[in-house]
């Protein structure tokens, strides 16, 4: 599934109006009689109702308003959170719990961890786990290096059309991932563009590009698709960097490489960490790219879940793989949340 790009951009969630400037509130603040309008008041309806009800409101008109709001106070704020949580629990948490349950109760009887034992013992699972992890790590490193270099040029060596490129990246993010694999089939496929050019030039019957059905093809597609996810937070972080720092460093005689290493990189580290861990999780969960490659020997954990469940109808094994996949991804995603919080997202 395509991931939401525009959300966890560090710095994008700055709250310009979060602390109410007093001059905005001033015309509406009738005085200390209405504590709800004071700048420090919380925006919780219940608290406001309480303040209004207990405040020294004198006119009968206001008093009735206060009573009406006091009536609302009967519904505490947390109760409003219950309906969406119930919906989520019904359509998401309950199914997940069933997956865990089914992974522990194999269809053909046996102990609770029999399915786990047989899946962990299988060669295919261990290979899939290894492939998934190295592909995800490799793609993340590739995305970080490439995204940093590209964002650096867009932000600090601007050229006419750099804004357009940034827009293009936003659009790129809204397309599904499998389109990249589809395109790579035309570019590097056995009868594709690159091989065609090669055989036109050398007269050979066969081109040298046969990596698409190998893990390298998946790696290339993942780096292509996920690099924009690193570039977005980086560009946001770069736009907040004070360019005077660069000018000072440069006027003191620092070369570009040194400025990048000593000034820009430390600034960009939080954004890099946040983007990198997001991409790592998304690569671990990527399915469309691997499915479209059509390679038989590239099996990742999501592919294994699909294969076991749909192609082999072995739901217990699929659930076991799913639980392992959830454990890895949710653990890493928790790490990402911590990192991006620290980065100020």
């Amino acid at each position: 599934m395509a991931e939401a790009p525009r959300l966890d951009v560090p710095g994008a969630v700055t709250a310009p109006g979060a602390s109410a400037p007093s001059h905005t509130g001033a015309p509406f603040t009738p005085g200390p009689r209405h504590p709800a309008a004071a700048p420090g008041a919380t925006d919780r309806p219940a608290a406001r109702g309480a303040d209004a009800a207990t405040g020294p409101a004198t006119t009968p008109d206001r008093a009735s308003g206060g009573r009406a709001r006091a009536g609302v106070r009967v519904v505490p704020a947390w109760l409003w959170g219950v309906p969406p949580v119930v919906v989520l629990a019904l359509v998401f948490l309950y199914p997940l719990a069933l997956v865990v349950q089914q992974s522990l109760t194999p269809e053909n009887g046996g102990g609770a961890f029999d399915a786990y034992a047989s899946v962990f013992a299988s060669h295919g699972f261990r290979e899939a786990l290894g492939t998934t992890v190295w592909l995800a790590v490799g793609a993340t490193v590739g995305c970080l290096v490439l995204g940093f270099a590209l964002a650096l040029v867009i932000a600090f060596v601007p050229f006419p059309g750099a804004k357009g490129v940034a827009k293009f990246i936003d659009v790129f993010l809204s397309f599904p991932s499998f389109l990249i694999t589809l395109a790579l089939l035309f570019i590097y496929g056995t009868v594709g563009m690159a091989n065609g050019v090669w055989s036109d030039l050398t007269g050979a019957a066969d081109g040298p590009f046969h990596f698409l059905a190998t893990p390298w093809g998946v790696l290339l597609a993942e780096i292509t698709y996920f690099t924009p996810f690193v570039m977005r937070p980086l560009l946001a972080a770069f736009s907040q960097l004070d360019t005077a720092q660069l000018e000072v460093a440069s006027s003191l005689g620092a070369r570009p490489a040194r400025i990048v290493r000593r000034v820009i990189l430390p600034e960009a580290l939080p954004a890099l960490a946040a983007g990198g861990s997001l991409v790592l999780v998304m690569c671990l969960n990527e399915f469309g790219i691997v499915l479209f490659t059509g390679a038989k020997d590239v099996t990742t954990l999501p592919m294994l879940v699909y294969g076991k469940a749909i192609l082999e109808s072995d739901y217990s094994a699929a659930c076991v793989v799913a639980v392992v996949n959830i454990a890895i991804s949710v653990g890493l995603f928790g790490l990402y949340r911590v990192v991006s919080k620290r980065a100020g997202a």
Partner: protein
Amino acid sequence: MLVHSKTGRWAAWSLFGLLFLPLFALPLLVVVAASFSTHWSGAFPSGPTAGNYASAVRGESLQALTTSLVTALVASLLALTVGSWAALAAAGLKRRGKRCLDALFMLPVAVPSVVVGLAVLVAFSKPPLLLNGTSSIVILAHTVLVTAFAYQSVSAAILRLDPAYEQAAASLGARPAYVLCRVKLPLLLPSLTAAAGLCFALSMGELSATMMLYPPDWMPLPVRIFTATDRGSLFSGSAVAVVLMATTLLVLLAVSRIRTRATYR
């Protein structure tokens, strides 16, 4: 400006072009070019035709397009309702409760979408709720997957909201429901439409969970593209892919127009 010398700048730009164009621009161009041709065995595609599109907008492909549109529309509206309700409720909570809701509603992002598909399939293939084989199971899975994004963008927008407006309204005697309908929601409208656009785009391109549970009579566009390319008809598959991209872009464009009109209101 990081690089001051002219040659250095040109070096940086050409490096950028060398990396950017083949990696990001070429794939999209190639898919578009392939959708207009029948052969590709050299440097350039050959056999220009519009026949791929003729078949991409009729029969099964047209059905897949409407399926995708209906699924994406319903799923994003449902997700927007649940997500923004949860975000508004979370904004009224204390730190602890807000963090709990945040974690709960972000969980579907972390869980692989294939696993979400498997979970929904396992849970709704047996009583009490038997949805397997119907269109609602696809819509349900899409809703689960995009709700997290609706929640995240709406709660980020609530953070940016100036509380002075609602405080002013409340101090003038507006009840919470009135403040919500006449002050908060209109102020949030641009972010709500943006979130709806995002959910729509994600749902249009969703493949992994859909592969797990689509019934034969409810086949969305990405699955259709996969079945076409899996059979080897890459060119008609890429025409369908272009239709998918164009539809997504059109909807995003329309949504961004709504957004600007709401901003200036």
